[in-house]
Structure formats: C-alpha cells, structure tokens
C-alpha cells in the first residue's frame, strides 16, 4: 500500500504523503491545510496527521487509537484501529487513496477529504481489527484491574462485533513481576509498543522490550531484570490494556468504586501533579492525570505530566498530598457511578430535640459487617491481599 502511495505522491511533487521531513516542516509552519473529516472542515498546519486533525474536531469523528500515543515519539501504526478512508487525496490530486490508511501515520494534504464513521468500509474494517486484537486477549475482565478504564474494552464495545470466529486455544504466558511494583500479564498484551517507547524516551536505560516474533512475540525483560528506574511506573499509565498493572493496587478494589481526586505535592523528580484514587480517606492508587483521549495530560509547567515512582507507589497517605478536588469524570463512564453530585446531607435534628441525647442506633454496621473495617487499611498492604491478611480478623 505504502509503495503505491509514495509513487502517487512523487508524481505530484509539491505534495508529500509520507511522514514529513525537517524541510517540509519549515515550509509547512506558515501554511494551513484545509481538511474535511466526516463533512466537517478544519484548518490544520501541514504535517499534522489525520488523527490529530480529527482530535481537534473531537467527539466521534476522532478515530480510536490503541498504539498511537501523542506524547511518545515514534508510536503508532501498529494496531490499525485508526484506519480511515481517504475519499479525496488532495485538491491537486483528487483521486481517493486505494486502501484504508492508518490515520495516526498519514499526514493531511490540502483539500483532503476523509471519511471515518461515515464510511461503511471503515466501520467494517475496524470491527475486523477488533476481532483480531481479541483473538488472543483473554476475556478475564472480571479479574483484570484495568476493567473500567480499559481502552480495549471501550474499543470492542463501541466498534467490535458481538461474536468471534476464533475456535482455537488462546496464546497464554506466565505472569511476570517487572520489579517490585509492576505486574506483567503478557497474555493480555496487544503488542502496542507504547511501554517500550516510554522506557526508551523517559528512562535512561531500557531493559525491557519485545522478544521473539509473530505469535510468540512478548514483552519481556532480559533474564527477569527488574526495572528500577524513577519513571518506569509510567508504563502502567500508557498501557491501553491490563497487561501492565500497578502491584500496589492489585485486586484491592475495582476502579469504579474508587473516587478520582486531583492532587499535587512538591516532588524534585517529577511535576508531582497526580490523580489519587480514593475510597474514604484511603489512597488506593496514584496515577498521572489523563485527558479525554486517555493520554497523560500536560502538567501546569507545560511538559507532559509523567510522574515518578516515588509519587506513584510510595505516597499512599492522604496527608502526603494537597488535594485540589474531585476529577471531572465523563458522566457516561462507569467511574462516575455512585458519585452523587450536589448531595446535601440533611441536618441531624435529633440531638437538638432530645436535649443533646444521641439517637439510639439499632445497629452499627461496623459491629456486624466484616467488609470495609475502619481499622483495616487494605491500601497499605504492600501487594495484593491474600487469605492470611483476612485471617487475623476473621471471627470464625
């Protein structure tokens, strides 16, 4: 596909479909290209990819992306979920592109017309891509810690078909511990390479990568080397599925039962601007702040808000943080369940009426219930809870 593509571009020398080189960028800075995506026209600087242009419009027009991450250089082009149809190449060469193109890697041309959700072909192809991504992905969402904020869940729900035609054994791997804080479930990995780019670009020495080829390809560290770098925890945030998860949060709670809160602290290594996932006063998990595309937001200083391991894994007390307020969560997200907005607690009038006597409770739930004991703080257990963590307080 690409070869034909470049050939047509070469015929028309003033336009270039391939990734822009430095010289193109210099010319391009000044001029704006008009591009129409799903009948919505927008002007973007030359060198912008179709995906970025679509994200500028926002909403359903933006194609989903599993491997592309705007904050990581070189990412994209692997998962094929962002395929779009280019119905008109450009103003000068109005021929449509012969095949669907990956919008994260294709730059816009002046007068380009792109069809995303308005194209039958794209919807069909995307459903096929989802089916392929789910071939080897286990359906263990009930166990997976990522469930509720998983991009693959959203993708298959919004763009996939109900059934699968795959009748064979799924590829399985053993669980790996990547250092003391990160759990790798290779079985769930979709090989998006985001974590590899993160380690490459954020840390000074990458010790994990993709080994083997084809069906055997897996994320691995050389001889189980632990990843002890200050910023390696960010691979958890960039992972679109539950392949890389936080071991300090493992199985502690479901994300939709915890409440995201924006908080910050003075950190000499990172920006220190994070999201705390709290339940009551307990801090269950610390992550970087995400934008509407599920990518890490820019911090107030302007750089990408990567956070360091100390902030992520070791600051699990509310007193470590300055809490700014609850995070705005999309109303349609499962994470917004149970967050009662504008709740007013009624004033207790009993004591006033009864001259200071407290109401006699028929039952104090904590005296009966074994769940959510105030004195047991699950969030402070180092790893996932085990049977012996619960035995100490078992009545029977």
């Amino acid at each position: 596909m690409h070869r034909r593509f470049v050939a047509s571009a070469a015929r028309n020398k003033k336009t270039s479909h391939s990734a822009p080189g430095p010289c193109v960028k210099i010319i391009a800075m000044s001029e704006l290209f008009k591009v129409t995506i799903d009948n919505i026209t927008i002007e973007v600087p030359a060198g912008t990819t179709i995906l970025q242009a679509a994200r500028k419009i926002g909403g359903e027009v933006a194609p989903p992306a599993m491997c592309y991450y705007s904050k990581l250089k070189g990412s994209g082009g692997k998962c094929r979920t962002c395929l779009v149809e280019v119905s008109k190449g450009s103003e000068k060469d109005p021929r449509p592109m012969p095949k669907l193109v990956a919008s994260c890697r294709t730059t816009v041309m002046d007068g380009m017309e792109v069809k995303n959700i308005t194209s039958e072909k794209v919807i069909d192809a995307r459903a096929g891509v989802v089916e392929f991504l789910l071939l080897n992905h286990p359906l263990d969402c009930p166990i997976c810690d990522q469930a509720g904020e998983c991009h693959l869940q959203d993708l298959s729900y919004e763009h996939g078909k109900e059934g699968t035609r795959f009748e064979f054994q799924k590829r399985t791997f053993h669980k790996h511990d990547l250092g003391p804080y990160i759990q790798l479930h290779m079985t769930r990995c979709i090989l998006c390479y985001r974590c590899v780019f993160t380690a490459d670009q954020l840390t000074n020495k990458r010790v994990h990568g993709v080994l083997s080829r084809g069906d055997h390809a897996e994320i691995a560290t050389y001889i189980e080397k632990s990843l002890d770098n200050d910023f390696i925890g960010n691979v958890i945030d960039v992972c679109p599925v539950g392949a890389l998860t936080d071991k300090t949060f493992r199985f502690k709670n479901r994300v939709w039962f915890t409440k995201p809160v924006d908080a910050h602290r003075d950190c000499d290594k990172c920006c220190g601007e994070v999201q705390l996932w709290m339940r009551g006063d307990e801090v269950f998990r610390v992550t970087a702040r995400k934008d509407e595309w599920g990518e890490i937001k820019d911090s107030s200083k302007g750089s990408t808000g990567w956070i360091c391991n100390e902030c992520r894994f070791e600051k699990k007390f509310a007193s470590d943080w300055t809490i700014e307020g609850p995070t705005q969560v999309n109303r349609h997200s499962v994470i917004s369940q149970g967050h009662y907005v504008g709740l007013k607690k009624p004033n207790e009038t009993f004591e006033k009426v009864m001259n200071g006597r407290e109401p006699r409770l028929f039952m104090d739930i904590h005296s009966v219930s074994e769940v959510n004991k105030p004195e047991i703080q699950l969030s402070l257990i180092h790893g996932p809870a085990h049977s012996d963590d619960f035995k100490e307080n078992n009545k029977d």
Partner: protein
Amino acid sequence: MQTLIPHNADESRRMMQSLTNRAKPVDRRPMNFVDRLYLPAVLKGMSITFGHIFKKPPTIKYPEQTREFSPVFRGLHVLNRDEEGRERCTACGLCAVACPAEAITMEAAEREPGEENLYREEKYAARYEINMLRCIFCGLCEEACPKDAIYLSETFAPSNFARKGFIYGKKDLLIPNPVTQPEEYAKAKGKR
C-alpha cells in the same frame, strides 16, 4: 365514533365503566312482608356459611406445610460453587455496581499457590456481604454476574428480632461443597 369526554361530574359518573361487570346497584326499594320476616335472609346466609364446611380450604397450615415457590421466585441469594467445589465468585464487583439498593459489598484477595482447589480464578472474594435489610430482591446481581456465581434461590430470609442477623456473609451465602459435603449439597439442592 362516540366521544368519551365527560362534560361535568354527573356525566363522568354515568360514563364510568365497571371493570368486572359484577358490581350490583344497591336495592333501595322499601322492604316488603317477606323481607321484614328476616328469617329467609338469615337462612340464606347460614346456608352459604355451612356450605363452606364441605369446600376445600384455600389456606395452608404454615409452617408445617409450605407452598411451592414459582421457579422464577427471587429469594435469598446463594454463592455458587463449580462441580469441583471451587468458589465461582471472582469479586469483579459487577453485582455491587448493578445493585440499585447498594446492598452488596466485597473485598478481594489473590489466590495463593495451593488454594486452587478452593477458588476457581486467581482473584476471589475474601469477604462478600449482602445486607438483606437493604436488598430489594430485584435479581440484577444475578443478571450482572459474568461467572454464574450468584443466584437468587427459592427461599426467603427468615425473620429475626435483631437487625444484625440480616447481614449475610460468605458463610451464610455459600452453597455446601458438592465434593466434601455431598449430603448437605443434595439436601440444599432439593428436588429440582
């Protein structure tokens, strides 16, 4: 077509149709001689009363006798085990998030090596509680469960004087283990 819009209160009363056609207008005529004797009316009433002696009673002698529940009855919850006696619940929290009364709470733990005969998945509910005082027996937890772990049975929660008896933990909810307790399992399963 006849219009059915009443114009005033009288008209609306006249137009009101009875649902069953069994309503009888009250007879307000003055009583005649037979009516004033009272005896025929008394005898008529007594015959109805004594006639019931020979009819089948509509009530049953609870608690010695119990009625059969309908197969779709939504009663007390049970936590299911698989054929090997392992707990099916994996503490995914979908029942709790589906619960409109917020009656379900749980705490999860990771299965350790050696516990494979106890729990089906690598994560399990170390604690699982249903507050039967809150529960409205709607069955949404049963619908939400992806692991066939929770079912609403054909019994109801026994009455209790204290509220604390209605907080059902795992030991109250789990069905008997079909491998280690086959007799209790068969008893709990009942006829069906």
